């Protein structure tokens, strides 16, 4: 039975692994840290899997466990670089760095998103994954109205970063 459970879990995880990769991409900034967080999310998913009853989609369940691990449970190992140290530091672009080409804009945007705090990153992540405000609010434990307000503030913050 345990082997069957393990097998079904590994198969599902293999299919949906990009969800974890994307969480890791937002919350880490190097290869080792990415692998470290990937490992921890996998363990947390596996530990919680016996209670997964299938009343929600496996992917929806993964978003919740993945984000909870990244925001709350994950303790960075010593070998990973602490990206959170940059939290709260005002990130300003120099005018000469700014380029109108879409590629350059995207590069700057990814950099800007990395400078957001953990909660803001979670909201942005769910937004980028095309989740509606009901799902965002349920995952984060805040009201839909507050989720909307916060998303608007994040958009303004990103605008300010991009157009200092």
């Amino acid at each position: 039975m345990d082997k069957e459970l393990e097998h079904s879990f590994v198969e599902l995880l293999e299919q949906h692994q990009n969800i974890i990769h994307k969480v890791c991409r937002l919350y880490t900034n190097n290869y080792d840290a990415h692998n470290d967080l990937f490992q921890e999310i996998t363990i947390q998913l596996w530990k919680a899997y016996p209670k997964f009853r299938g009343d929600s989609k496996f992917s929806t369940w993964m978003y919740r466990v993945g984000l909870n691990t990244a925001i709350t449970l994950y303790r960075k190992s010593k070998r990973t670089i602490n990206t959170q140290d940059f939290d709260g530091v005002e990130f300003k672009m120099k005018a000469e760095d700014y380029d109108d080409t879409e590629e350059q804009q995207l590069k700057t945007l990814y950099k800007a998103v990395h400078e957001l705090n953990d909660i803001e990153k979670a909201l942005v992540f769910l937004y980028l994954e095309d989740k509606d405000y009901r799902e965002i609010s349920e995952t984060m434990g805040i009201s839909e109205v507050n989720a909307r307000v916060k998303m608007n503030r994040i958009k303004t913050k990103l605008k300010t970063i991009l157009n200092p």
Partner: protein
Amino acid sequence: MDELELLKKDWGKQDSTYKQLSTNDIYPMLQKKSSSIVKTLFYISIGELVFWILINTIPYFSSDSYREKLDAVYSNDTILVGLTIISYAVILLFIYLLFKSHKAISVTDNAKKLMESILKTRRVIKYYVIYNLVMAFVSMVVGLYFSIIHNPKLSETISHFNQKQLMMTYAIMIGCVAVFVVIIWLFYKLLYGLLLKRLNRNYKELKKLEV
């Protein structure tokens, strides 16, 4: 175009850029140990329980004369026996509360509820530490007082003190014990502060959204 819409457009195209793991890569990952803060918190709470129980029982088992003295006191003093029973009942209560709060932590809850469950567990440990520090403070002060009273040389010296000197002696005694207790308390604050720094910051951020 809205900045996030531009990002969203690109975000969807990123899937092919991640290194895809095979089932053979995933199986060994399931055997690895977690290093989450909940696990660390669990080990620390077990450590707290064991540490304070040992502090209370080691002197009893390490010295025959101390044990004999205590046994003699206990056989004559029902209040002390009652207090001891209460202190063990309190430890059992804390074990129960810790077990309950640890069981309530679920990674599948929403982010805010998960943080609250962890903070609740941390509060139980905090109350346990405060309880032990208060008990340690009271027993050290009472212990010092009785050891002075029962030491002929010391009580002889103290009997010559005037009111002011006597007050000073007691103040120094209480002050030293208080400093000792505060140092231990600061150590705990630092330990939990470091462990839960990020969680506290994120919880505050979520709470801020409700204002």
